[in-house]
């Protein structure tokens, strides 16, 4: 069995008795693309926030690269190689596009900041907009900038919170290529509602529901899992009806899923 880059054991986060995340055991295999799915309010963002250190767990333990990181602050975890991109685009809106990515790169210490920054921007097709103020970019470009910031830190683990939300189809294809390119050097954990992206990209899928792990497996196994179908689709569904039932806003991607 391949090495686990990140493991969580009994990870919990309670807010005044509300169990946002409850005793989750989770293993992330190095080099894989792992998708985290689940209905709204299942605790996905809370869970990855615990991993990245943005919030502290109520209980449980997280190990990364063989070391216990449970007590480390977020910025130290980033320095260890866990990079996080926000669900709601969080860029430096008042700064030039160049500075946004340069900030991600310069912290590692490099002698070729300008060249590396331009290369990172080129990778997502934003090189010709380097001098533009980031806040004036189109929404899709802002998402790409955010992903570029995450990637340019050359992390060991890249956590993406709904990266394709609001992207056009062509941009999603570019995103898929980009993510395939960075593996297996980088392990990717992504929260995703677009089932096309999940099924096409992920090596493994974990389903969260009410803060607990419902199932983990390959995309095919998850697709065939009866418990997942019940949680996601409200009972009586079978695999073939996935695309029919996913008319919900959050499942927009599934409507295009191949049967």
């Amino acid at each position, binding site marked *: 069995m391949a090495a686990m880059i990140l493991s969580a054991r009994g990870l919990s986060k309670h807010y005044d008795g509300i169990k946002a995340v409850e005793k989750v055991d989770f293993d992330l295999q190095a080099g894989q693309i792992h998708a985290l799915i689940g209905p709204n309010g299942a605790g996905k963002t809370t869970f990855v926030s615990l991993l990245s250190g943005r919030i502290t767990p109520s209980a449980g333990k997280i190990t990364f690269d063989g070391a216990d990181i449970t007590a480390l602050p*977020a*910025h130290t975890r*980033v320095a260890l190689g866990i990079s996080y991109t926000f669900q709601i685009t969080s860029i*430096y*809106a008042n*700064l030039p596009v160049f500075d946004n990515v340069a900030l991600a790169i310069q*912290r590692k210490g490099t002698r070729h900041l300008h060249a590396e920054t331009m290369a990172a921007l080129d990778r997502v097709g934003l090189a010709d907009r380097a001098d533009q103020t980031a806040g004036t970019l189109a929404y899709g470009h802002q998402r790409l900038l955010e992903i570029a910031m995450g990637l340019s830190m050359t992390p060991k683990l890249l956590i993406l919170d709904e990266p394709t939300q609001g992207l056009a189809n062509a941009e999603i294809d570019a995103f898929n290529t980009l993510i395939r390119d960075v593996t297996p050097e980088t392990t990717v954990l992504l929260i995703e509602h677009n089932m096309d992206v999940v099924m096409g990209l992920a090596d493994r899928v974990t389903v969260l529901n009410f803060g607990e792990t419902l199932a983990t497996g390959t995309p095919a196994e998850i697709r065939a899992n009866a418990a997942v179908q019940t949680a996601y689709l409200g009972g009586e569904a079978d695999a073939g009806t996935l695309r029919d039932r996913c008319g919900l806003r959050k499942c927009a991607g599934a409507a295009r899923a191949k049967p």
Partner: protein
Amino acid sequence: MTRALALHLAVLALLFAAQFILPPYHHTNIARIMVLAVFAMGYNIAFGYTGLLSLGHALFFAAGLYATGLGIELWGLPTLAALALGLAAGGAIAATTGMLALRTGGVSFMIVTLMFAQAGYLTILYFGTYTRGDEGFVIERAARSIASLDFSSDTTRYFAALVLFAVALLANLALTRSRLGRSMIAMRENEERSRMLGYNPFKVKLIALVISGLYAGAAGAAYGVLFGYVGASFATIQYSILPLLYVLLGGAGTTLGPFLGAFLMFYLIDISSGYTTAHLFVVGAALLVLVLFAPKGILGALRDRGAKWLP
């Protein structure tokens, strides 16, 4: 040479040339404004670039002023050593204050820094035996010189103030273009994002505050030696508010804003107090106009209206 560097050198050249044509009264004023502008530049590094709204910078200025003044008068230090002590005191007090105050943010940070400055002011009064309290003390003329440079003479004083100002200004320009400067601005713009890029917000802010304290300490130390007076009034809340006003008027987060703001505010008070005793009313009115029509200050407004290259 870039436009920005050319502009800064032109300002310095103008100030150099000005000493030959200025009448004595304004000659002394400009020397004073340049020293106060260094103080304001330090304030701008914390407030304008890093987003730390401090109400306690009088403490750092007074630390420099008193370390130098007491160093000369009480401990008999040579002038150069006393100036170095003033610089170090500004940085050290800022580091100590920062380590405690930076555990807070926003309004709490304002209140905590204000409290530290008040505590510093009261400490100066408490040790009145040495500091002479409100009354203050004069640094004797013999001590206000290094080798053959007599800082009590107008020409030398102006020149010394200009040298300090030039070093501070060019260092500030270099800082804004450095990686450290970029990470400070990042803290102001989006602290959470910066944390998730691996920056320790506490560390970046502390470094910014120490640099800011070094500027304030240098200005305080120079003020004591150039103008020869050390008094507790420099540790009052007024001297925490003044650099804030200078920076707001000239343009927060611009390198030349602090000087422009100090210059305009100084003469606004100077001229208006010639006509009325209510000169603070004039200052208030000017600030209202500023907030309404150019909330980013004069250079901030210029930068928004096309001069994007202004650092």
